[in-house]
């Protein structure tokens, strides 16, 4: 019986983990403002972007290494909204992604790309390191070491 409960519980947590919420940039700004001293490492990716998929494990390592620090890794998918159920959620489940995953819910690329960073061409992968004081945007692929160094030297 106890085992059954554990299985049920783990199934519930698993399905909670596999949630992918829709996110607007207003949502994101509010989250950053409420985050006090938290630094957010926000990776813009898509299931169809192979270099993005390749660097996801490095973001997981960064998340695990900073569990006790005020650091949050947010994975923001730029997949089409129509692919949320068919592609994005199954991808997150299959790859057992533990970080918070969102799907960007912004209709106008002309507006949201510039709002995230004026210099961003729109190419992914791209990553934003942001807290209340600092905002650094990188249109590039990261290695594991580059990720932790960028976080450490963020000023």
């Amino acid at each position: 019986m106890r085992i059954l409960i554990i299985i049920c519980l783990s199934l519930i947590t698993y399905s909670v983990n596999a949630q992918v919420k829709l996110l607007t940039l207003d949502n994101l700004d509010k989250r950053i403002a409420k985050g006090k001293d938290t630094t957010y490492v926000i990776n813009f990716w898509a299931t169809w972007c192979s270099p993005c998929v390749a660097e996801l494990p490095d973001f997981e390592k960064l998340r695990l290494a900073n569990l006790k620090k005020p650091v949050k890794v947010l994975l923001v998918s730029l997949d089409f909204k129509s692919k949320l159920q068919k592609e994005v959620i199954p991808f997150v489940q299959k790859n057992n992604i533990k970080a918070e995953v969102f799907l960007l819910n912004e209709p106008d690329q002309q507006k949201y790309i510039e709002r995230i960073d004026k210099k961003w061409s729109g190419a992914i992968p791209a990553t934003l390191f942001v807290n209340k004081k600092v905002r650094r945007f990188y249109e590039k692929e990261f290695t594991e070491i580059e990720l932790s160094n960028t976080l450490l030297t963020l000023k």
Partner: protein
Amino acid sequence: MKNLFLIGFILISSHVFAQTQGYQVGDVVRDFTLKNVDNKTVSLADYKDAKGYIVVFTCNTCPVAKAYQDRVSALNASYESKGYPVVAINPNDAGTVPDESFEKMQALAKEKNFSFPYLSDPNHIVTKQFGALKTPHVFILSKTEKGNIVEYIGAIDNDAEDENPDKINYVQNALNELSAGKKPVIASTKAVGCSIKWKKG
């Protein structure tokens, strides 16, 4: 003397900066010679009667570029006869992504029946000159007395999924405006695309 060094340094760094930036709207484009999928070389100067060019950085593998393949073909079908041919350039390195090889480009051009050149830029030279950063990435040029001038940089339209009947066709609009002797109302746009797969090392 120190000042001279400083000025030299500033000049060098601004030069490096300018190089990574690539062309902006209004800049004159340097002509290039790249190998087409038919093994012949193509330069902009080959098009004696062109009024301009639709230079499209695209590739074999990027899902966004693939979603736009038919729309790129349609652009050539509509605008080549009006003096604006499509010139497609693959900016990706085949060493980094094997499916971007010249042979795979040839296969794609054959399969999709490309009516326009599909050029390989194996050392990213032209890609860096233009400052293309992703696929697809479009540069519309117009031929003038000063040379080929960049008139538009950005996306083909604002609907990669091609599902919105009210989508804005940026490239078509810009071409129609140029054909009418006007400057494009919207001269630059942004869109999500695949990063360029640069040569490693």
